[in-house]
């Protein structure tokens, strides 16, 4: 379980408890975080779950797969060095306290 803070593009903050093994996307949409769509349900096929991960922690995450890497090249909002697809990040205790910012648009 990890407490993750999602900050919407308009600044709205939400702290969400996400069970270990779930993805950031699943934790967010099930708690009503509005800035993530997750259209493909986590198949890494839509890029509507784009997020900006806390700069301090981004390097401690497992790196993106080739598929995620390519999908990240095609997000609706600007790709940054800390861009990830939230459906590809599995939650563990190590992510407790993570802060995730959401982009202006997902589609």
């Amino acid at each position, binding site marked *: 379980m990890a407490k993750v803070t999602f900050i919407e593009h308009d600044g709205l903050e939400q702290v969400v408890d996400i069970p270990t093994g779930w993805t950031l996307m699943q934790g967010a949409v099930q708690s*009503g975080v509005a800035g993530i769509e997750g259209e493909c349900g986590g*198949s890494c096929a839509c890029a509507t779950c784009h997020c900006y991960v806390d700069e301090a922690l981004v390097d401690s995450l497992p790196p993106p797969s080739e598929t995620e890497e390519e999908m990240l090249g095609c997000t609706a909002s600007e790709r940054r060095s800390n861009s990830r697809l939230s459906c590809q990040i599995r939650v563990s205790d190590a992510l407790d306290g993570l802060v995730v910012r959401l982009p202006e648009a997902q589609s």
Partner: protein
Amino acid sequence: MGDSAQADAGMVEAGMVIVGAGQGGLQVAESLRAEGYDGPITLIGEEAATPYHRPPLSKAILAGTMEEAQLAIRGAEFFERQRIALLTGMRVVAIDRSARQVRLEDGRRLDYSGLALATGARVRRLPIAGDGLDGVLGLRSLDDARRIRGALDRAARVVVIGGGYIGLEVAAAARKRGLEVTILEAADRLLARSATPFLAGFYADLHRGQGVMVELGAKVVALDGEGGRVSAVRTADGRSHPADLVVVGVGIVPDTALAEGCGLACDGGVLVDDCARTDDRAIVAVGDCTARRTGTGALLRLESVQNAVEQGKSAAAALLGRERPFTAAPWFWSDQYDVKLQIVGLSAAHDRMVLRGSPEERRFSAFYFREGALVAIDSVNRPADHMVGRKLLDRKAALTPDQAADETFPLASLTR
């Protein structure tokens, strides 16, 4: 004058009613709020579960890498916050268009000012002997997936009837569990309804390479059983294929019962225009239950998440009297083994195909052209081609076959 003013003041707005709490129905509700609608929204679904993603049912759920709780598209907090009344485990049995009411199975009637039909589809049954035996299962709902997952735990030999996407995904999941798997497809190739012969051939090779027996031109004539349980599948050539689990994936039948019952125009689906409107201005329809009359007059039936989501957005706008046509190129994906397929556009009418990348390395895109214009792209483990391809098709970019085949040509340069 006094009368009508009083009547208005005393009238409670009936609000929006959505029948079917799946991908499309939920999208209508969500988009109504996004469009600024502030009145009552009631989302009614026959299934017990809150709206969930169906694609993982034939993928991660069967593979055992995803729990059921992870399937929900939105959680309870979302419905509260958006003030969407979600009624699960409740079937709508009739629509009374003149009274603008729906009737629920418990006898209640709900008034509507706008109504959305998002009833989805049901699995097509086999019109042959033995279809009702234990161990013969279709896959549409979470309940179906539970039954198949349970059966896979006990099965040794699986026969999949029908080589469409769902059948192929089930075959891949069963094979990954080490079971003996046979696919019986009546047509002379896999994916006959939806993909090109080239792509179908790629998938036949892929499955055979994984040890699946792929039988083409195999017409199933009967299912044999022992003690009420299926034991074999018989084909027209006289062969018997032993099985302790049979998964039937021969397509779906759009659920048009309610629409037909109240006299809405249907033609292999509830007929809608590009804005998801039916022939009754108070009623819209979205997703797998629809057939769309496009701007060019063609009848289009799509079974995909994108279609449910985009029609859902159009439908919400239409209920509020706005036009937001869905004209984007259709897209779809399928995951089998370590192969991710992403399709955009409609390849059926193509007259030329060129390849970018290498089918041998399982990393390529097939670009399809008709009279020189790009009409579709199938991407296998090439997600960037697919994502750029969506833009190319939506903008009708002038990509040439030579450019498509040339790996040094930057596709994205045509989207700027």
